[in-house]
């Protein structure tokens, strides 16, 4: 490295002790945390039709979502879903700023939960600061120890829940009690648990500041009509301390009493009064803090508030604007495409692989034969009967195939198949189609292209 004095790799940032805050947005954030974490921890335990409702069964390569079973071949749906999720993030960012960061991001949500445990064991901000400075004592050991105990148990439970999305959680619970959890399963549970512990217990908003790509590029989606959290400089300045009885107008003071509460509550340690900064994760703690002070001073609320740049400049805020229309249109098209393709999806997969060893075989009676391996997958949950046929060459027939093929629910049938046609009809490379038709009257069919080779004419 070229730095003359390389700083130590593990030099730690000065610890931030965010002050606890109550108010409208703190309540909203608590609600979001409880709801989202509640969903995360409860969802794997839900049962649908006698099976885990949300199970991404990696060992058997099938995804169960409520009544739906998705196979690896359905990956395009997942890709489309992820694109929709990303675009929704853009849409909401342009509309309301970093809502995601402040209320829904797993980093924020788990950090919030870890801070609750910290406050429960170590007390308020000032108590925590005092405790850290104090020499080791029985009290300090007890408080720090119980915090670690809560954090570690919570992390382990989180890791266990995480792997419970990928392997049946009830069986996993049984294995856990009997100490027979598989090696890799245990590894991933510890891995995820440890990541939660590190990210939510120690790194916290440093993750947002230094490691999150979204935090860096979200400003590209901002414009002057985006909802941001801002300090109203026109109203607040000149700031300064004063008695409650002071006549502000006479003294030439603004509304900001410079109590620094907005800085103390900030989890990223910025001063909102310096303007919009990329470290701001829009948690709105400073709004709650400032509102409580304004109430005490009998000033109107909203010195720090959700607003837009246009509103701050006393211009009109436009909610509907070209950017929003483009994002919304794209979103609607993609969601429409997903719904349409999902509803038109037939739960059958037909794979045809031509035998590569021989081009074709000539049989007595001027018959040309090609061989194929057919893979018929029944993606539904019930056993189904199929009929297999082939079209594309005059008089082509299938040999070695029973009239009715039974494939169990979620089963795969692998079948060698011989297609035969008369030499007069089969020459060169011909396009054929295999058709699998269900015999239960549902009309579900699946076709798959292949080739039939004959002698050159």
């Amino acid at each position, binding site marked *: 490295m070229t730095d003359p004095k390389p*700083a130590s*790799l593990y030099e730690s940032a000065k610890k931030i002790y965010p002050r606890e805050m109550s108010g409208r947005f703190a309540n909203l954030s608590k609600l979001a945390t409880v709801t989202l974490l509640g969903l995360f921890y409860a969802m794997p335990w839900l049962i649908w039709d006698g099976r885990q409702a949300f199970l991404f069964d990696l060992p058997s390569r099938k995804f169960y979502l409520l009544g739906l079973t998705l196979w690896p071949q359905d990956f395009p749906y997942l890709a489309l879903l992820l694109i929709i999720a990303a675009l929704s993030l853009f849409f909401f960012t342009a509309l309301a700023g970093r809502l995601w960061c402040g209320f829904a991001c797993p980093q924020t949500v788990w950090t919030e939960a870890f801070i609750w445990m910290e406050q429960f064991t170590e007390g308020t901000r000032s108590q925590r600061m005092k405790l850290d400075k104090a020499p080791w004592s029985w009290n300090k050991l007890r408080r720090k120890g119980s915090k670690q105990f809560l954090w570690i148990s919570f992390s382990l439970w989180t890791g266990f829940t995480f792997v419970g999305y990928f392997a049946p959680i009830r069986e996993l619970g049984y294995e856990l009690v009997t100490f027979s959890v598989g090696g890799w399963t245990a590894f991933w549970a510890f891995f995820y648990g440890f990541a939660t512990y590190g990210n939510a217990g120690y790194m916290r*908003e*440093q993750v947002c500041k*230094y490691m999150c790509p979204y935090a860096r590029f979200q400003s590209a989606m901002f414009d002057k009509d985006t909802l941001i959290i801002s300090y109203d400089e026109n109203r607040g300045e000149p700031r300064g301390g004063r008695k409650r009885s002071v006549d502000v107008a006479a003294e030439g003071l603004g509304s900001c009493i410079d109590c620094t509460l907005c800085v*103390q509550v*900030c989890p990223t*340690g*910025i001063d909102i009064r310096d303007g919009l900064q990329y470290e701001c994760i829009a948690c709105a703690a400073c709004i709650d803090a400032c509102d409580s002070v304004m109430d005490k001073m009998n000033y109107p609320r909203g010195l720090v508030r959700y607003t837009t740049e246009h509103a701050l400049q006393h211009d009109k805020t436009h909610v509907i604007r070209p950017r929003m229309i483009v994002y919304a249109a794209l979103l609607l098209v993609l969601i429409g495409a997903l719904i349409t393709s999902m509803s038109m999806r037939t739960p059958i997969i037909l794979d045809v692989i031509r035998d590569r060893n021989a081009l074709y075989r000539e049989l007595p009676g001027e018959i040309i034969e090609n061989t194929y391996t057919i893979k018929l997958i029944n993606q539904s949950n019930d056993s189904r009967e199929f009929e297999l046929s082939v079209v594309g060459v005059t008089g082509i027939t299938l040999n070695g195939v029973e009239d009715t093929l039974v494939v169990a629910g979620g089963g795969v049938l692998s079948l060698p198949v011989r297609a035969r046609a008369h030499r007069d009809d089969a020459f060169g490379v011909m396009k054929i189609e295999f058709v699998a038709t269900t015999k239960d009257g549902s009309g579900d069919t699946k076709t798959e292209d292949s080739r039939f080779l004959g002698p050159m004419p």
Partner: protein
Amino acid sequence: MITEEYRGAKQWSRNKQAVFAVVWISFLCAAVGTMVFFAVFDPVDLTGVFDEDLELERDAGYAAGFFFFWVFSLVCSAITAFLVRTAPKRDAAHRTKQD
């Protein structure tokens, strides 16, 4: 009025920022890469591709794939970060005595 005590103050050192960004972003890339790769290939089908005698369990295959992708993107990101950070601040032609 705002003392260091109130502020989060000190930043992570540049080295620490780089190390954590590289580790985290390559981790995310590895997660996406693993997902896409194993949506197409079944680890069981890959048995015997690299080594005739290799008997791969599915979950071991997923883990091996994930760590391969992680190490791979970790090396890419780390070299990129190293090059960006150690590049000469100015070209030799524009260098003044002070540089």
